[in-house]
């Protein structure tokens, strides 16, 4: 019966997914400037193209199977492989063969990996657009649908894990580990789903909404992030979980998985439906997400304490920023600053303390033994900059070039995008119906005010990045030439100017939002992606910081000039409410 449901429901879901995907693609294309005008409405019903899309959709599903599932399990096997060879070469577990050590670590890491997956991503009750349509519009049985999709996910995972197996056996993984892991994966998933189902049953009895708490999710994520490095360092230093304990865990999880299966089997359709209805387990349904996002932007602080004595557009901007202080300034800046300060201190302490206390050799050895180095950076050599083969120099190199170039855009991207979303949903969306707001001189007046405002928001986290980079430079031998510390700040400022202008100008040139804060412009998304890729490529070209300084400053000046001209020319036409 269950199998019959599976084969009846799955094709419908996949078909619906492809329809949603195809129509969304045509919609996005039609909204793209120039191309959009050439695309006729009949494209929505062109059978031939739908078949092509359907083929791509299947390739995508298979791709997800190979890339998604196999990438995760490959990391587990690689970690086990590296550790088993390291353990064997140092004879850290006398009497145990390398293959057995491999199997032990593979099982141990896999249990960790799967439990973290269950903790963060048990999505049997997750609300998705297709579930929305099928359950709430077409009134499909929620239990059958959820179980079918869950079984489909388990099947993909099972096959994906088996496909990785032969390679792992070739590099030393014992045959039994390859056989056991896919079954264990399914059982752990069943345990997670059964546990969640049980939890929802209890919540339902207490008439609580069936959804995960946001604070709980954050707590779990932080716990995992904090636990992992600690665990890794323990293992690197020879503390491991012995084989009998690992096997006991496997047996326990298998039993829990079987119980989970029966719990899930006995969960009635009403609970499934209620869980979907209460939704937001890890909300991804775009429409609802958009509404939620929009609602979060409507949290305006207006208790009368924020006043302004400015005039005109300065007055508008001042009130806007003050009333959205928490969203625009406090939250992102505080978040960026805290993260960067932590990062700076971690790097600083990591290197400086060992360097000061134990000397360069001890420091180098310590860093060399660090897991990060072991997995990722071992043997690192830069083709352009003459560096020693050591983590010590690697961090210095990062601080001078890459780390800095990566941190600044990342910290600013979130701030800038959120700012433009808030500008649109709480201010521009309403004022765009007034003709004065769309006059060129008015647009530019407000554009310039906002550019300055965004700079103020983006500069603090960028400066903290600069401080972090300078700290590392200081701890790893000081500046190479006079004013190098100052150069770091000037580069930061120039980068902030360029990125800030790009985010704001893209908003004015594409105005990608509809009545919600969801991006509905393919052109905007494409422009953003292209711009980000260019920035990433440029910033990751190793170059002397003085060259970086010259390039960033010149680019910043030129970019501001060109983008202002573009906005001035086009914004009266492009910066408007999307129909």
């Amino acid at each position, binding site marked *: 019966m269950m199998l019959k449901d599976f084969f009846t429901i799955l094709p419908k879901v996949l078909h619906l997914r492809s329809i949603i995907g195809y129509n969304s693609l045509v919609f996005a294309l039609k909204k793209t400037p120039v191309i959009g005008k050439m695309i006729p409405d009949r494209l929505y019903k062109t059978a031939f193209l739908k078949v092509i899309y359907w083929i791509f959709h299947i390739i995508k599903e298979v791709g997800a199977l190979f890339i998604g599932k196999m990438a995760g399990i490959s990391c587990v096997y690689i970690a086990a492989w590296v550790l088993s060879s390291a353990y064997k070469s140092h004879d850290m577990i006398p009497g145990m063969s390398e293959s057995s050590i491999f199997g032990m670590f593979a099982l141990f890491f896999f249990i960790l990996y799967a439990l973290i997956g269950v903790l963060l991503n048990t999505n049997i009750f997750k609300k998705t657009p297709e579930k929305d349509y099928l359950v709430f519009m077409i009134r499909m049985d929620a239990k059958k649908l959820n179980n079918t999709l869950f079984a489909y996910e388990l099947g993909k995972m099972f096959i994906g894990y088996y496909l990785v197996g032969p390679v792992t056996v070739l590099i030393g993984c014992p045959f039994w580990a390859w056989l056991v892991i896919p079954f264990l994966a399914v059982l752990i998933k069943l345990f997670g789903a059964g546990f969640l189902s049980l939890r929802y049953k209890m919540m339902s009895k207490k008439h609580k909404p069936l959804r995960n708490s946001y604070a709980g999710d954050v707590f779990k994520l932080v716990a995992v992030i904090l636990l992992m490095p600690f665990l890794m360092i323990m293992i690197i230093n020879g503390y491991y979980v012995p084989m009998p304990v690992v096997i006991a865990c496997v047996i326990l999880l298998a039993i829990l998985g079987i119980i989970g299966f029966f719990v899930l089997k006995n969960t009635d359709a009403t609970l499934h439906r209620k869980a979907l209805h209460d939704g937001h387990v890890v909300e991804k349904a775009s429409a609802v997400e958009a509404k939620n996002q929009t609602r979060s932007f409507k949290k305006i602080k*207006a208790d009368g304490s924020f006043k302004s004595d400015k005039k005109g557009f300065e007055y508008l901007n001042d009130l806007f920023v003050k009333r959205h202080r928490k969203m625009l300034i406090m939250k992102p800046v505080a978040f960026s600053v805290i993260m960067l300060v932590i990062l700076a201190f971690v790097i600083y302490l990591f290197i400086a303390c060992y360097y000061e206390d134990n000397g360069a050799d001890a420091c180098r050895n310590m860093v060399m033994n660090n897991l990060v180095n072991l997995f990722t950076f071992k043997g690192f050599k830069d083709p352009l900059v003459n560096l020693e083969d050591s983590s010590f120099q690697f961090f210095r190199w990062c601080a001078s070039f890459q780390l800095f170039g990566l941190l600044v855009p990342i910290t600013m991207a979130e701030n800038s995008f959120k700012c433009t979303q808030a500008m649109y949903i*709480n201010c521009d969306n309403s004022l765009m119906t007034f003709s004065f707001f769309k006059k060129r001189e008015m647009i530019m007046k407000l554009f310039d005010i906002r550019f300055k405002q965004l700079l103020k928001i983006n500069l603090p986290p960028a400066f903290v990045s600069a401080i972090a980079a300078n700290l590392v430079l200081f701890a790893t031998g000081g500046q190479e030439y006079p004013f190098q510390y100052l150069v770091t700040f000037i580069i930061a400022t120039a980068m902030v100017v360029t990125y800030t202008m790009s985010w704001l100008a893209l908003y004015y040139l594409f105005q990608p939002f509809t009545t919600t804060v969801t991006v509905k412009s393919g052109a905007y998304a494409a422009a953003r992606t292209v711009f980000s890729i260019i920035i990433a490529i440029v910033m990751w070209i190793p170059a002397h910081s003085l060259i970086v300084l010259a390039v960033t400053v010149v680019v910043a000046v030129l970019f501001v000039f060109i983008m202002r001209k573009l906005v001035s020319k086009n914004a009266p036409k492009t910066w408007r409410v999307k129909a």
Partner: protein
Amino acid sequence: MEFVISHLVKSYGSKQVLKDCGFVFEEGRIYGLLGRNGSGKTTLFNCINSDIEFNSGEFYFRDGKDSAGKIALQPEDIGYVVSTPTVPEFMTGREFLKFFIEVHEEITPDKTIDEYFDYMMIPEDDRDRILRDYSHGTKNKMQMLVNIIAKPRLMLLDEPLTSLDVIVAEEMKNVIRNQKDGHITIFSTHLLDVAVDLCDEIVLLNHGKLEPIDKNNLGDSDFKEKIIAALRDEDDA
């Protein structure tokens, strides 16, 4: 002063919403733009307000009957009140008016801010609250008020009475009537009774074209049936 729409065409893909639309609107009159849902009333307004581009045609002001004297529309000539009120929700009503007056340097307000509020019958305790907390009707009044302050030549009212309660709807109607002198007011609605009650003339937007209805017929008993018959799609018949 007249507002002229001439040979206006607007298509969405292959669907032509406005087909060679043309009409002359006179100053000092309220025109009821009547059409079925989806007939293109909002599209017409969005074209005039430059919110969307149109395929061909033009609109302009004309001083008297001199057909050669075309006066191009400037953004400040248009006041647009939409059915779902859009006001910057993070500002109080008073702050919004202050900002609006400050950025319109060309306007010399003939009233104080509180006098404007009084004129629109916006209660005193609402004036210093943020607009997010205003009722639908009061937001609509705010939208109307800033358009009154700006004194545009052409006032586009897109179903502004939709979902207003009886009292606020009556107040709004009175404001619209009081404001008609010196302006060209086009009031779109799909409600026949509202159009008959408020407007001096009725224009049908039907099958993408603007068609005048003889105002002398407004009082006829079978007037409604005639309008409905005119609006009914051939396929419906």
